[in-house]
């Protein structure tokens, strides 16, 4: 269980927009062509989530179990 991360559902089309737009350069594309949080330096600004064209990404909070 990850307490601080993003959750990406299967609908992800691997466009990479979220990675490009994260102002803190936290995200990277994985080998599975889905983004993951490579650097947990997130401000939970939500830019990745609102930019996702298929609304498949969710941002969570540090120290808050989900």
């Amino acid at each position: 269980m990850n307490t601080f991360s993003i959750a990406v559902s299967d609908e992800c089309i691997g466009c990479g927009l979220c990675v490009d737009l994260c102002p803190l350069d936290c995200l990277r594309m994985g080998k599975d062509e889905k983004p993951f949080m490579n650097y947990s330096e997130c401000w939970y600004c939500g830019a990745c989530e609102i930019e996702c064209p298929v609304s498949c990404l969710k941002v969570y909070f540090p120290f808050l179990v989900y």
Partner: protein
Amino acid sequence: MKLSLATMNTDILIIGGGCAGSMAAIRAKELAPDTSVCIMEKGHIKRSGSVTMGMDALNVVIVPGVSSVSQYLNILKRKCCDLVDEAPSRVLAERSFQILKTLESWGVFFPKDDKGNYLLMQVDDEGRFCVGMDEPDLKLILAKKLRESKTTVLNRTMVTKLLVYEDRVIGAIGLDINEGKLILCEAKSIILANGSAGRFGLPNTGYLYGTFDFPGNAGDGFSLAFRSGVKITGMEYTLRYPLIKDLSIPLLNIVLTRGAKVINNRGEVVADQSRASVHRLIEEVDKGDGPFFIQMSHLSKAKICEIENVLFSTERPMQRRYWELKKMKFNRDLIELHPTEAQLCGGHGLSGVVINEFAETNIRGLFAAGDVSSVPMQHLTGAFVFGNVAAESAVKFIESAGNQKIPEKYLEEQFNFETKRIIGITNRVDNFIDNTQYEYKVRRVINEYLLSPKNAVSLNKGLGLILELREQLPLYLRVRSLHELCKALELEYILDCAQMSAIASLTRQESRWGSIHKRSDFPNTDNENWLKHIDIQIGEDHSDIKVTFRSVQKEGRA
């Protein structure tokens, strides 16, 4: 890690593409369409900076018939304990309504009541200068304007050095963090718009990026300016805000202006619509009357709905999820407030690059706007107004100043020097402390020694530790990727800000601004000796810092 090199030139280079930088570019292109304008932005222009989507209000607007410039100046002076230069703040106030109108004409939504009046809110003990702005697409509107203006935007490009020759700025060096490319950019004029020192003190959660201010701004602007000989002021103004505990997202103004109350541990009301000073709240927390809670159970369903709409749609939409995960409801539960980490900021506080009413710094051709500059409590309005002012001044400067004669090879030498420095940092692959651990250490020192209550012993001790951490940085900090290179550079910026802040706090031998600068060894405010600015400038190197005093400029324009 391999770095490549590139060169370019532009008439105006803007560093930072937040609201101030974007506005400056749009204005410069409007005034002089043939001028080449380039923005270097560390993140991505579309979402980077303090504003990700929009903001709920423009905090400083003098609406004709409602308030006046002199009223604003008087209240501002009171809030800043008189340490305000009048001219820049006057320009801010005078141009504030025009900025609102310009934004409105671009499609930014400012709600109005049935009579056609803007939504005005009082966000402090006095004065109604805050205008509601219900616009989640503020950033997108700016980005569109920017595209139309044909500004060149280099995203993911972090400026690492300003180049100055004989007190005139001649260019800057940027690092493309995606490509690993160092770019020498010759420029006739530069506008510094890269924000505050958001990652300064350590948040109470210990989570490094859980800050109030945008954590992409590690004090880059203050540090770049400082290293190139620019005067920085107000670094003793170590500001904390009462925000949501563990989240550090603002909501206080939004809820207080809509009828919420803040209660202390005895259930007594300590803040409401008529008494909303955030600084006084912090003082009360420091007195030990906390924890403090926001109470909204008495509000109508409609009010709660309105609050949720503003909080969850315009500013930080993530907030909704936070409350859901916490299983908390505004109409039922108390929300705990807590002072945020300390920050240094020219938007919320009064720290930053010294500018005059033309956004000029002490280096010719270098202008500053927004949170990086010290125009006290200018907020978002300041970013827009001084974005405009800086652009106007930069355009004028390149028209009138003529070309600077730079000795042959000077730029090349500077570029070589910076390239060597950066490559040196990339060679630290075998060091053993990662940037997160290192930053935690630095910011813990800031919390323990450099914040109120301050005294000479603790400040000196803190300063010593900061200098030590600077010396140890090359020996211990591990750098294995471009991302970590960027973090290594940011750590230096944080250390610079800590050093400047310690020196300024040591210098100001009095207490001022309540809990912001409280010296236990000089507990009183001493207007006779200390009603002046403390400016900091680099000397030969970091160990040779010049401190100068500047009297408060009262009236008229410089």
